[in-house]
């Protein structure tokens, strides 16, 4: 006699340790296997785009901090690039270098968190996560020296950066780079060739390149599928046109490749940081812009950067007032999330958690 079975629908989240925020997946399981997935988000909606219409251009910088709260330096940079395009302001060289340097440090911090939580989702008891956080804390200390904040930085401002780096920042940065080499090698030795990591992640949840492109996926997720798509190379902003770096790509598009691409990108980011230290020259760090900015009526601008999660863009429309008529955020996490159903159906519950970890979404950015 065949045993009667029936699929069961489970809510993963909004309160779940592995959804990386308040995010909900309504999943139908056949035993452990996934039949249907429906991502539901919006629990963290704060109306950032609407709030931006009530604030002046300088104040909006603080709103961008709260989008992807693990890489606010890059968010500030993207927004400031859009405002500068709107106003036609030329940013001083030193500010460009400082932005590039801090953006790359922030990318390292963000990827470290991504790697750490990916392995946490794989079921390690926090050891790689703690190793990653050890280095991330050092980066946050550096940011604290720069602007007094650790998470919500607001360091980039329209026209440059808020402060020049203090004198003791540079030796501290050198010390960090020296220590980071060994610290990062420890992380790599612990996990990169681990047999269990391999069998759990390789060949799992493959994202084919055509699906990735059609879904507007960007960042490490797209690069893991085989396309070297990086706005730092294709449309260099700030000081990236003077930097030498590679774009790591992988061919498999599975969980391991997404994780591996992040690991390699940290190496490239450190390379860029070192070049910034060599090339940076003294000078002013902020163009002469007024506190209350009034772009011309009808001006529109789109500023984009390669954020740690993918292409982050701010589209600004001005009506001549002190605050934008409309601000649209193209958030990479939201668009990377659109492939979840393709990635998850047919795999098991345990793979689902790991795949979500490998996408490295940030709910602050998804819901905005």
């Amino acid at each position, binding site marked *: 006699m065949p045993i009667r079975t029936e699929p*069961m629908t*489970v809510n993963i989240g909004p309160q*779940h*340790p*592995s959804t990386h925020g308040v995010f909900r997946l309504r999943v139908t399981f056949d*035993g*452990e296997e996934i039949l249907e997935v429906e991502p539901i988000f919006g629990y963290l909606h704060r109306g950032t785009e609407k709030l931006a219409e009530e604030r002046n251009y300088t104040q909006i910088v603080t709103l961008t901090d709260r989008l992807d709260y693990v890489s606010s330096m890059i968010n500030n940079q993207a927004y400031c690039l859009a405002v500068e395009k709107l106003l036609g302001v030329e940013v001083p060289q030193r500010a460009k270098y400082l932005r590039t340097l801090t953006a790359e440090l922030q990318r390292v911090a963000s990827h470290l968190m991504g790697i750490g939580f990916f*392995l*946490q*989702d*794989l*079921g*390690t*008891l*926090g*050891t790689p996560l*703690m*190793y990653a956080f*050890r280095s991330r804390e050092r980066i946050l200390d550096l940011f604290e020296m720069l602007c007094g904040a650790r998470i919500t930085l607001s360091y980039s401002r329209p026209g440059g950066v808020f402060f020049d780096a203090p004198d003791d920042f540079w030796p501290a940065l050198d010390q960090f780079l020296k220590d980071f080499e060994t610290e990062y090698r420890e992380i790599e030795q*612990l996990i990169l060739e*681990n*047999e*269990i*990591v*391999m*069998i*759990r992640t*390789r*060949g799992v949840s493959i994202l084919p390149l055509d699906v990735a492109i059609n879904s507007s996926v960007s960042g490490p997720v797209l690069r893991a599928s085989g396309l*070297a*798509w*990086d706005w730092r*190379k*294709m*449309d260099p902003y700030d000081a990236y046109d003077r930097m030498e770096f*590679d*774009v*790591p*790509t*992988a*061919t*498999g598009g599975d969980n391991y*490749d997404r994780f*591996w691409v992040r690991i*390699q990108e940290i190496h490239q980011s450190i390379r860029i940081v070192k070049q910034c230290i060599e090339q940076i020259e003294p000078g002013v760090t902020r163009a002469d812009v007024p506190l209350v900015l009034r772009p011309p009526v009808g001006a529109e601008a789109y500023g984009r950067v390669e954020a740690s999660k993918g292409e982050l863009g701010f589209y600004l429309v001005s009506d001549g007032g002190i605050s934008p008529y409309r601000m649209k955020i193209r958030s990479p996490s939201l668009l990377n999330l659109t492939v979840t159903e393709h990635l998850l159906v047919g795999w*098991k*519950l*345990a*793979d689902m*958690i790991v795949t979500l970890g490998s996408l490295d979404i940030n709910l602050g950015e998804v819901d905005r």
Partner: protein
Amino acid sequence: MNCVLGPDNILYDTLLFRVIYDFVGQLLPCGLAYVASGFAIMFLLANGVLLGAGGFSWAERRLIGRFHNRVGPNRWGPFGTLQPMADLFKLLFKEDLTPRGADRIVFMIVPVAMVAPVILMMAVVPFAKDTALANLNVGVLYVLAVTSITSIAIFMAGWSSNNLYAMFGASRGVAVLISYEVPVVMSLLGVVLVAGSMSMADVVSAQTVPFLLVQPLAFFVFFAGTSAELNRTPFDLAEAESEIIAGYHIEYSGVKFALIQAAEFGAVLTSSAVMVTLFLSGWSGPASSYLGWAWFLMKIGVLAFVFSWIRATFPRLRIDQLLAFAWKFLLPLSIINLFATALEVYFLRDGAGILEATDLWIMAGINFGVAIGCLLIFGTLIQDKVRPVRPVSGVTIAAPEVF
């Protein structure tokens, strides 16, 4: 008034019991004294195991703290040793919730059903010379029987909680426990063959050479199987925190949760104790006639440290990989070990069926070769099975395409 325990009594070998019985026998009638001293020794055992569980929870948290590059609990008491007490009192004062729609009676029994086998398991383990609570002549079988109660407790928890996550955890837990029971039993048969007895005390006295050396393959299988049955990290599917939050005990709170946690930490200790007895020559060591307990505790400590170490290092396996590991890797290994051991015992034993220390050393030599060969062959086989063949990706330099 002088009550004397006959040598045919099951508790005659227990020195501790006889001491208590002699003392209580002067105050109470013999029958009552027998029961009273039985309760006394059970009280000692249960509290010893639970205290050990508390101590181990502190030790493991400190250890994992060090593995994590942090300090671990260090506030309450010297080096934080009173932390388990603080946790216990916190949990005692918490509200004891029963979810709506739960099967109340089954839900209530589960914590007891979890703790009981852990304590019962200690009953046959000799802490030192003649100090096992009961020197059963089927001690090994008893241990195996008692540990399998845990799977029922896990399923009871999952079923009665009326929660899908708990159900996931329970079905995983039962699948794992049933699968791993088989290789564990098979690996212990090798030990029983060499020792020639199922009594734990006899197994210890048979270990002129520790069975870790004589039965390396059995130790490996037993260790892996035990850590699966204990729900420790590479195999902690039943309570996989990142997947199903807490698995089968998701709905437990307050003192019930404390008991389940105590059972989990205690199970590590008792399993280590069984492993020490069966493979690491138990309490024997230099000056074991009066320092046996110290050797025993030290060996338990070493094994518990290895368990913590593994827990802090490895990611978790998936359920199909976990079951494949049991059925395709551990089970063949344990069968090979059993056959090899049977042949060796058949050819090496003398007329009275006794194995001398030299025989054991010969067996150790052969079995180490067998173990390394088998691990290599089966390791390669299973690796090819579970690892998708794909070249490692490389760094490519982007060709800038400007849009």
